[in-house]
């Protein structure tokens, strides 16, 4: 019996010794990403290989794809289970939770020329002057137009809805679930989900009521936006227009129809832009946090940002000119790059995000559900949203 015990102890000791030695010996890094696109992964692996060539102590850099649907849930489950990655892509909506919780390691010192990053685009990833994730992709929303179906290009939302009545104006990521996508429309009315400090609900504001009345009418009266449960694919040529992020332009490479990309149409409040973001951060709990931050610095330096720009719009001022972007975005014309991408990134507001975003998401989704019926009482539904989320906004 005692021999058996001794054997178990030895085995346990060996195990702990092995796991403890990883921090000093050769390092292996893992970054969770939500892309499974072969071209994306090829580029990521090329950058990683270049880094490893100069850093022989890093034996492996693995890009671990987690499907976008449920990405944050899977990531947090990995963290909870003690299997946190060394680096992780983070969706803009989870940024406040990750940045404020202290899950991420500070990285400003590792970022090359951090001063040239567009201030409005890194705001979400900062706390007390420190940077906690690098926004490697900042993708403005634009209006894709199928020019076979629409002859006169719209300048305002009224024109856009009129031109696509019966011909479909789609919001591919909305699906009557991801309400935050609607911010690409309601911003034109000057509406916002909550105040800048995140404490006041904005859904019951007159601007929001006007904007949502417009959206409701576009769905049920004008029959421009497809109704709940109906899926129409713009990228297959079945819709007149689509409100989507410009990173989707790649899907139009082999389009069999004429198309163009416009900035978001004007609302009653004039010009505006809305952007979606993705950041990459280093998990503080990683045993190789130091090496991971060092790799992040390399991954996001000016040279690599330029390479990544073909898929992920950059936030470096030196790269934000039509000439540089045109090299990596052959599908878009220089004026489109200027008006949608460059202007969008510099003046755009990021899609709504808040601490405890997922709970807000679900609560707002549920409270907005009664709106998606032809006879909905819009004012009452929106007041109801505020009643439901008030305690959540005050909790922060």
């Amino acid at each position: 019996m005692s021999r058996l015990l001794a054997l178990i102890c030895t085995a346990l000791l060996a195990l702990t010794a092995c796991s403890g030695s990883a921090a000093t010996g050769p390092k292996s890094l893992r970054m969770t990403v939500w892309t499974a696109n072969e071209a994306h992964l090829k580029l990521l692996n090329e950058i990683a290989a270049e880094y490893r060539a100069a850093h022989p102590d890093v034996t492996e850099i693995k890009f671990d794809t987690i499907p976008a649907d449920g990405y944050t849930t899977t990531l947090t489950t990995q963290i909870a289970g003690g299997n946190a990655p060394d680096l992780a892509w983070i969706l803009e909506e989870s940024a406040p939770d990750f940045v404020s919780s202290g899950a991420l390691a500070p990285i400003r010192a590792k970022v090359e020329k951090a001063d040239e990053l567009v201030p409005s685009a890194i705001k979400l990833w900062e706390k007390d002057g420190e940077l906690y994730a690098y926004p490697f992709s900042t993708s403005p929303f634009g209006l894709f137009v199928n020019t076979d179906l629409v002859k006169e290009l719209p300048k305002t939302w009224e024109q856009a809805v009129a031109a696509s009545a019966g011909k479909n104006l789609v919001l591919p990521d909305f699906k009557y679930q991801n309400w935050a996508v609607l911010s690409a429309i309601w911003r034109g009315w000057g509406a916002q989900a909550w105040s800048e400090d995140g404490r006041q609900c904005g859904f019951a504001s007159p601007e929001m009521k006007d904007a949502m009345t417009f959206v409701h009418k576009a769905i049920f009266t004008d029959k421009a936006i497809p109704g709940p449960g109906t899926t129409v694919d713009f990228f297959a040529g079945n819709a007149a227009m689509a409100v989507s992020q410009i990173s989707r332009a790649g899907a139009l490479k082999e389009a069999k129809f004429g198309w163009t990309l416009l900035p978001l149409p004007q609302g009653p409040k004039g010009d505006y832009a809305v952007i979606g973001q993705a950041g990459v951060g280093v998990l503080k709990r990683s045993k190789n946090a130091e090496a991971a931050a060092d790799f992040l610095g390399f991954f996001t330096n000016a040279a690599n940002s330029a390479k990544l720009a073909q898929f992920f719009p950059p936030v470096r001022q030196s790269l934000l000119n039509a000439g540089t972007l045109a090299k990596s975005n052959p599908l878009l014309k220089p004026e489109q790059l200027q008006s949608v991408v460059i202007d969008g990134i510099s003046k755009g507001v990021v899609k709504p995000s808040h601490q405890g975003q997922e709970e807000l998401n679900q609560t707002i989704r549920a409270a907005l559900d009664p709106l998606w019926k032809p006879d909905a009482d819009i004012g009452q539904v929106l007041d109801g949203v505020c009643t439901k989320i008030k305690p959540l906004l005050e909790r922060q």
Partner: protein
Amino acid sequence: MTFWTYRRRDNLVGYLFVAPALLGSLAFVLFPLAMVAWYSLNEWNVLGGTFEFIGGENYARLLADEKLRDSLVATAWFAAGLVVLNLSLALLLAVLLNQKLRGTTLFRTLFFSPVLVSLVAWTLVWQLMLQPEGSVNGLLGVFGIDGPNWLRGETTAMVSVVVVQVIKNVGLNMVLFLAALQGVPAPLYEAAKIDGAGPWTRFRRITIPLISPTILLTSIITIVGSLQVFAQIAVLTQGGPGTSTTVLIYYLYQQAFQFHHFGYGATISVLLFVIVAALTLLQWRMRRKWVLHES
């Protein structure tokens, strides 16, 4: 007297035989159960990496949680709908397919086959069929009925989830009922016939009492199963519209894995555990009353 008596040796062999199963359930059932109970007494911030003992606070929150009440109501509706529909349909099918007619084997296979299909694949296909312009409404259109937007109405969404789940699993209960029906001795029916009992009386007085152990078994399995339905909700409705299909286990998932309240999520699983245990115990006690040979 030596230490290794026959009795002791036999015992050791016995213990060795049960050891793998015992260790397995200790490691993978009892230990996680104990951990869940422990987590429910703590506030666990996964992102911040903090784990703090807060005693009964999560349980106090459970009592004050309005969303939990909504979710319990949704769970009750779902369980009631599922159990009634599943058991009655399974029994009806079993009785029909127990007749000595041509083609029953084909129908048995047909009704059982959904049990073998992957749950998520099954649900995804139904999701397409239940769209406003999907095949369900297409079929209704043939009869001149203008079908609703199934997954967007509060009542129709619940009905859809129940029906999709019933069709998926009714075959399993059907097979259990079939086996039970075939175990009912034929002479009993013949004797009853001679005594002048009609088909309904024979069913009520002979069939039901004799298959009552199976009815107990299937109702326990179905009720416990109905409390654990997750994938169907996650795929078809995500708990909506509103919170009409947010059943307890989906609410648990939201709290723990989506909202990162792992401690509170654990508290809800303790509640779920208590509910399942109480229902099973209740049915087990009631068996003396309505299961033949048990009183």
